[in-house]
């Protein structure tokens, strides 16, 4: 199916069903390049950071091989949709070339920013939640969607600082972006839990209030707990470096019951990457919750 067809179909909510082992995917990472081509158990699809495949070379060789076996999603990390300037056209052009070549079932980016002036920090930085930011994001999302000729997915972030004069809840910003631009939602369950603990709100309220009709992908990941030296306070960091924690599984289970439909789900693990056996076991756990709509 071409991207244009997908656009006409308002983007496929489920993955193409043919030969699909599972609705749960994992990230395609260098460490697993050879092993993933043996189609390990429980892994239904692969998530790819397109920026890692800019240029050419060996990475593209493995992506070609993996694409022959799996459906893939593209998860961008460098567009900086929340910056107070237009998205970089050169960066976007390279993403489009990869989309045209590999035909991922979705392309997602973040509710965050990274670039200002000439600096482009390698982080997903926090935004104030107000009308000016919503307008700026809408402008960039519309530009990207027009350029790529497809609806994109926007992911909720983890943040470690909050603006004092936020005018909107985070889920209100995401709902409004989706309503105004037609973009879909990539809901990161771990990020909701991290946000709830770091900024003091109910994680269940978030699930209850997000527009679940527009959720087209879910993320699960492990956070790390950070303690400041000589201080009692702790903060949760979205490190993607551990197994999914129990409270996140519980929230995932709650979300599954609430949403009542099958949504492609990713086990994210980007640091201290474990063996594929461990990722496969995490994927199996997620699949079981999706099927049973409750924690095992």
């Amino acid at each position, binding site marked *: 199916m071409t991207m244009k067809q997908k656009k006409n179909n308002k983007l496929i909510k489920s993955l193409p069903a043919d030969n699909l082992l599972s609705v749960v995917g994992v990230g395609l990472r260098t460490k697993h390049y050879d092993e993933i081509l043996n189609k390990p158990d429980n892994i239904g699809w692969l998530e790819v950071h397109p*920026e*890692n495949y*800019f*240029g*050419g*070379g*060996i*990475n*593209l*060789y493995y992506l070609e091989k993996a694409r022959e076996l799996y459906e893939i999603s593209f998860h961008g*990390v*460098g*567009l*900086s949709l929340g*910056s*107070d300037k237009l998205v*970089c056209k050169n*960066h976007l052009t*390279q993403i489009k070339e990869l989309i045209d070549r590999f035909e991922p079932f979705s392309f997602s980016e973040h509710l965050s*920013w*990274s*670039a*200002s*002036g*000439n*600096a*482009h*920090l*390698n*982080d997903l*930085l926090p*935004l*104030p939640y*107000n009308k*000016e*930011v919503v307008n*700026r994001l809408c402008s960039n999302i519309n530009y990207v969607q027009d350029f790529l000729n497809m609806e994109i997915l926007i992911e909720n972030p983890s943040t*470690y*600082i*909050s*603006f*004092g*004069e936020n005018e909107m809840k985070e889920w209100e910003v995401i709902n409004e972006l989706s309503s105004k631009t037609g973009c879909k939602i990539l809901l990161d369950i771990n990020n909701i839990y991290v946000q709830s603990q770091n*900024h*003091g709100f109910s994680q269940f309220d978030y699930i209850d209030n997000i527009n679940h009709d527009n959720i087209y992908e879910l993320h699960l990941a492990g956070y790390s707990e*950070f303690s*400041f030296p000589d*201080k009692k*306070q702790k*903060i949760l*960091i979205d490190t993607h470096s551990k197994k999914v924690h129990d409270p996140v599984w519980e929230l995932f289970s709650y979300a599954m019951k609430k949403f009542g439909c099958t949504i492609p789900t990713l086990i994210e693990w980007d640091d201290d990457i474990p063996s594929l056996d461990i990722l496969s076991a995490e994927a199996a756990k997620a699949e079981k919750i999706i099927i049973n709509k409750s924690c095992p």
Partner: protein
Amino acid sequence: MLRLKDIQKSFIETILDKNKNCNSEFKSLFDENNISIEDRISIYRGHFIASLTAILKDTYPATTKIVGDKFMEAMSREYIYLNPPNSGCLNLYGSSFPEFVKKFEATKSLPYLADVAELEKIINSVYYAKDDKPLLPQNISESCNLSLASSACLFSSKFPVDSIRDFVMSEDKNNPQQLDISSGGVSLLICRKGKDTIIYQLEDSEYKILKLIGNSGILEDALTSILIKYPDFNFSEFIQKFIPIGCFKDVSY
């Protein structure tokens, strides 16, 4: 509240401040909520430095082994504050690191270090270079335009940098390689072949003609120049050796 543009400018300036200052106007934008704004910003600054340091260590593994982890981390921190990324793609981040190492006062006692770093920079750029259509032997003539492939790069050093790199990266502690650092310089072709990046040691004449081809692109001109200095240069052997390596791209394509 400040406009988004001003908030983002201040945020980046605060993260990039080596002295970790946080001005009161910037702090007033945020909720402290039992954790100081300085501590909260330190999470972002810490991630910024740590993730880029990891990229530099990954791109420059031999350089890291020569100076040691702690020194590399300190040197990287200095580099990163002066050279934050300017793109959302980090594949080639740190391409000016060898130049920085060359000028870094604390590494003056290691005169070969910047060249080892330069070799590692080239290996990284070759790894990510785009895939050209390789030149086939039947398409070669003296009047044709030749060009080095994007995934091929020349490098010469007055130090045996390839041997230094092999020596420090050798994992075989039972059979350690020998290294004679005074063995003289090398001319190298670094080229991607299939899934591997290979480093070829070149004769002077080979290096010079490849350099001339890289500069002018016209085989006949390069050949004329090289025959003046190396009258015995064997063009046929040269082609037979280098075409299979895949270091030329088909410019007619």
